[in-house]
């Protein structure tokens, strides 16, 4: 187990390096410069470029990024908050925290609501409840988060005035409700659908009949035998979900005016703030990689048949 995790960590560092290289060339391939404005003269731009080392050859710039990242230095912002260390922007201005909080709540909602809904639909297969859930989950999967966000805003904030339209720094419970629902709805419905299918598959297995023959109560059969065995596809899906919820929150963040990392990330791209683009990409990638590792380890706990290390033949 330890050696497996070590291997994965080494692999992750290589992946992050690759991500840095790709991001670097992609952002440099986009025309424009952080210092290009309507008023700026070529001399000013050249001066600014020289100040931040943007006049150096590309490979030197890339090398500097890698060198500094190894030291834990993420550089300084070129434009959006000129001169402020990127590390402070991401971690010390509450942006990261805000996005993560929003993401985790949405993730929890998706899991806590999606899994039981899927179980219910499978258990009452063919009933009106199953039919209703199928319609609801299909709609949930079909509607994009930002459409739902707009809908929720119109109904609950504008018309009924229950929840605030701007969530800002998420000061209270009320301000969380709409963003979390908009962010989680797609994933909740998808998990419910996934759970229904895999639960149905499990219910029809012989070991469920074995449990029944043993005399296990129906409730325990579902929770102890069927649920545990049908969680694997859901766990698999949780890796990409986590990534999607955390990185994909920028649209929701914009809709509800939440100054999170997602929103900042998009702004950094449009304003060509290279160090910020690089840092947010790397931080989010690292997060996704960590989540993938967690999912793989959870796998092992959920299903003893899965071996993490390559087969010892």
């Amino acid at each position: 187990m330890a050696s497996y995790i070590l291997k994965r960590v080494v692999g992750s560092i290589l992946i992050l390096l690759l991500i840095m290289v790709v991001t670097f060339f992609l952002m440099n391939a986009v025309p424009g410069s952080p210092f290009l404005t309507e008023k700026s003269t070529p001399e000013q731009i050249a001066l600014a470029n020289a100040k931040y080392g943007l006049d150096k050859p590309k490979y030197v710039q890339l090398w500097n990024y890698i060198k500094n990242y190894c030291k834990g230095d993420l550089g300084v912002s070129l434009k959006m908050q000129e001169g402020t260390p990127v590390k402070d922007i991401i971690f010390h201005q509450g942006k990261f925290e805000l996005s993560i909080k929003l993401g985790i709540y949405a993730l929890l909602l998706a899991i806590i609501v999606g899994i039981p809904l899927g179980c219910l639909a499978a258990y009452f297969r063919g009933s009106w409840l199953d039919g209703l859930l199928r319609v609801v989950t299909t709609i949930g999967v079909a509607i994009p988060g930002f459409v739902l966000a707009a809908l929720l805003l119109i109904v609950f904030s504008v018309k009924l005035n229950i929840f605030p339209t701007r969530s800002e720094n998420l000061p209270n419970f009320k301000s969380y409700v709409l963003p979390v629902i908009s962010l989680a709805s797609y994933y909740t419905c998808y998990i419910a659908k996934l759970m229904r299918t895999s639960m149905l598959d499990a219910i029809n297995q012989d070991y469920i009949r074995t449990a029944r023959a043993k005399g296990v109560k129906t409730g325990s059969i579902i929770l102890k035998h069927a649920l545990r065995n049908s969680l694997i596809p859901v766990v698999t899906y949780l890796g990409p979900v986590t990534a999607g919820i955390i990185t994909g929150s920028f649209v929701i963040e914009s809709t509800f005016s939440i100054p999170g990392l997602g929103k900042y990330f998009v702004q950094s791209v449009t304003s060509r703030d290279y160090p910020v683009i690089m840092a947010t990409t790397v931080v989010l990638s690292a997060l996704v990689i960590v989540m993938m590792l967690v999912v793989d380890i959870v796998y092992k706990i959920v299903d003893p048949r899965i071996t993490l290390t390559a087969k010892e033949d």
Partner: protein
Amino acid sequence: MSEERKKLVEVTGLKKYFPVKGNLFEKKYVQAVESVSLSIYKGETLGLVGESGCGKTTLGRTIIRLYEPTDGRIVYDGTPIYDKKEKISVRMLPYRRKMQIIFQDPSGSLDPRMTVGEIIGESLDIHKLTSSKAERTDRIRQLLEEVGLNTEHANRFPHEFSGGQQQRVGIARALAVEPEFIVCDEPISALDVSIQSQVVNMLEDLQASKGLTYLFIAHDVSVVRHISDRIGVMYLGCLVELAESYELCSHPIHPYTQTLLSAVPLPDPEKNKTRTRLLLEGDIPSPINPPTGCRFHTRCPYAMPRCKEEMPELKEYAPGHFGACHLLEQNGSHNTSTSHNNKEDKE
């Protein structure tokens, strides 16, 4: 033969229909088991044969009420546990201790998430058979030894075993509650031929030492002939013939049984080549729309107009030899059987 022997399981008019998707106006059902009546005597092995899809497995599962019967009556050891007409449907938990099942697919019938010890222990826990943790561990070990497994295997997961070993775990699990009656649902058909005899012998030994009663379901007539005291033959949900093993194999009276037996390969290749085989024409009809009257009439070489209209009842034609065929009713039992054989010879 059986007056002095005690009936352990008695099934009367048992039906099991599964709903399938019909259209708006009528519900359709798979008539998996149609009015089966049979008795299983204490200590015997009743074999059940028939081609796949004929309802043997459904019958076995319905008898121990893993499936809720559609109609009929099940009596266990003198107590009715299910009766549609009298609306009896007892709580099954106490009977789960007495009736157990061994499934066909050894790996599928063991929860992949539980260790072998947990799988066996769960049965012990439900029926509160052990009072302390130490006793529980001892009992699990003892059961594993009984089925020829290593006691250290208790901490392993099912996937770490071979098919034969998994089936042994399945048997140990069934034995954990000290049952009287075990439905062996094709327990060896998923196993390697070399392992099959080991498992069959073990089942026989266990029966001798524990006085178990088996309902042994299989599609392989030679295995059933070996292990069973009596054999029942099923076709499309109906029991068509029931007799003692030797009697059934030597004097089959139902046309379907005759064809079935003629398909059993003989060990002597010369004889196997030269003998005449009875072959049925056509496919087995769908159990959703079974033929009217005798369900076998569409493929029966001796079908008469009456067979299309009336379903024959299972009647005793020789002591302990039951058959369900109109032809038998006309001719009397063994005459028919020999006349069939004569025809077979002429062909």
